[in-house]
């Protein structure tokens, strides 16, 4: 069974020449939850944007469930890889929540009763069914985040890639989010600064810095090494007891 995600020696430079990713290699098995950690500017978000083909690598390859990412497989890859953006506002662009959640499935060809059903299921999975008729700009930060996840889940993806999912959430919302993600049985890749969230949610983690993978292993082990963390501008809010 091929890994859910296989990134092989991915390199990418921005149009202005700045090197963003340098030979990044990463493999994630089906059902795993892996955290991608690192300081600002490490290339974490850039990597995330490659995973569904929004950015196209200069060299290297990406395979999703054995399917090689290229121009032809793009639509299928985009169905399989669900990307949840940093700013939920960028992702909620339709007049109502129901329209937003339905946008993805509608593009996949669903309509009528099937579409309605898919939308209800996605809303229910995230616990926001009561928000279906609301306009996105009237939602709170936590509600927007949940709806954003629903818009992606509605595509029935194989992999969920989340970019800073807990950013801007108050502690209660954050706790709900962690519970929600723990309850969804799907491969997850979580880009985050929130080290305790990574610890709670992801058994495995990868640390990136300056476009490279600099450390990988069990999350608990990585986060207990405070000297290594400090070397990459990271620190736990509380020391980890081994």
């Amino acid at each position, binding site marked *: 069974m091929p890994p859910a995600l296989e990134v092989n020696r991915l390199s990418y430079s921005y149009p202005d020449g700045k090197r963003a990713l340098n030979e990044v290699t990463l493999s994630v098995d089906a059902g795993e939850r892996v955290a991608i950690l690192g300081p600002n500017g490490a290339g974490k978000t850039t990597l995330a944007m490659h995973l569904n083909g929004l950015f196209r690598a200069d060299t290297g390859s990406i395979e999703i469930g054995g399917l090689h990412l290229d121009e032809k497989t793009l*639509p299928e890859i*985009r*169905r399989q890889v669900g990307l949840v953006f940093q700013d939920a506002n960028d992702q909620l662009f*339709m007049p109502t929540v129901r329209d937003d959640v339905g*946008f993805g499935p509608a*593009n996949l060809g669903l309509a009528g009763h099937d579409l309605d059903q898919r939308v209800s299921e996605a809303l229910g999975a995230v616990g926001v069914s009561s928000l279906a008729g609301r*306009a996105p700009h009237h939602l709170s930060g936590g509600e927007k985040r949940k709806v954003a996840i629903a*818009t*992606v889940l509605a*595509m029935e993806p194989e992999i969920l890639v989340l970019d800073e999912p807990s950013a801007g959430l108050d502690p209660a919302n954050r706790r709900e989010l962690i519970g929600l993600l723990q309850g969804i049985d799907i491969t997850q890749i979580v880009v985050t600064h929130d080290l305790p969230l990574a610890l709670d949610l992801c058994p495995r983690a990868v640390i990136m810095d300056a476009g490279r993978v600099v450390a990988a292993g069990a999350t608990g082990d990585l986060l207990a090494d405070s000297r290594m963390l400090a070397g990459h501008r990271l620190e736990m809010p509380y020391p980890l007891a081994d």
Partner: protein
Amino acid sequence: MGAGHAHALYIHGHSRVHLLAPEVKVAAAFSMVVAVAITPRDALWAFLVYGALLAAIAVMASVPAGFLVVRLTAVLPFIAFAFLIPFVASGDRVEVLGLSVSEEGLWSAWNILAKAVLGATTSILLVATTEVPQILRGMGKLKVPSVFVSIAGFMVRYLELIADEVGRMRNAMRARGYEPRWLWQAGPYASAAGTLFVRSYERSERVHAAMLSRGYDGTMPDLSSEPARGADWAIAAAVPALALAAAVVAIAGWL
């Protein structure tokens, strides 16, 4: 000259008016306004009829009179213009309250005033009983090009966000002592507008990326619901039909 937040324009409710399909309401509102606009200005009785019809809708939809008055202040600039007309217009003079005004001008002022107020009240009632996304849906059903409706949808969605950014920029400038009163001090305002455009543009690129991520291929998907029932059309047509009848009678001069 835009007004405030969209949610302050809608009054939540479940009246028969609220529950009508949006396309019938938009069509009815437009027809009503046409009837008002083509009515000859001296058919005073017709304007009374229109006022009564709109009042009836307001009552049925539980829209308070105070709300209507507040919202009508948007029409204010032209009301002021209307009041000036009798003074600057030419034609035979007439004495009103000790002032010499043009008789023709008085009729013109009445014409503009009555039609502006009735027209504005019609849209206010439409928006009070129909949420904006629904209004856009209704426009789409009435064959307004979908590109236009989609653009309007994005505009409405991101308007508050951008207006908030404007507010934040303004506060930041004020906090640093910028309170300009003359045009040559407007440099920072203009820069703020330019920066706002760049930020807005960059947001649109991210939104586009999000759309691509969910399978967007250049055309918006069809998310429409079922078309309105015949009964809805019949009910909604009642008011503009009466109004149009009144207009026809007034134009033909039968009353």
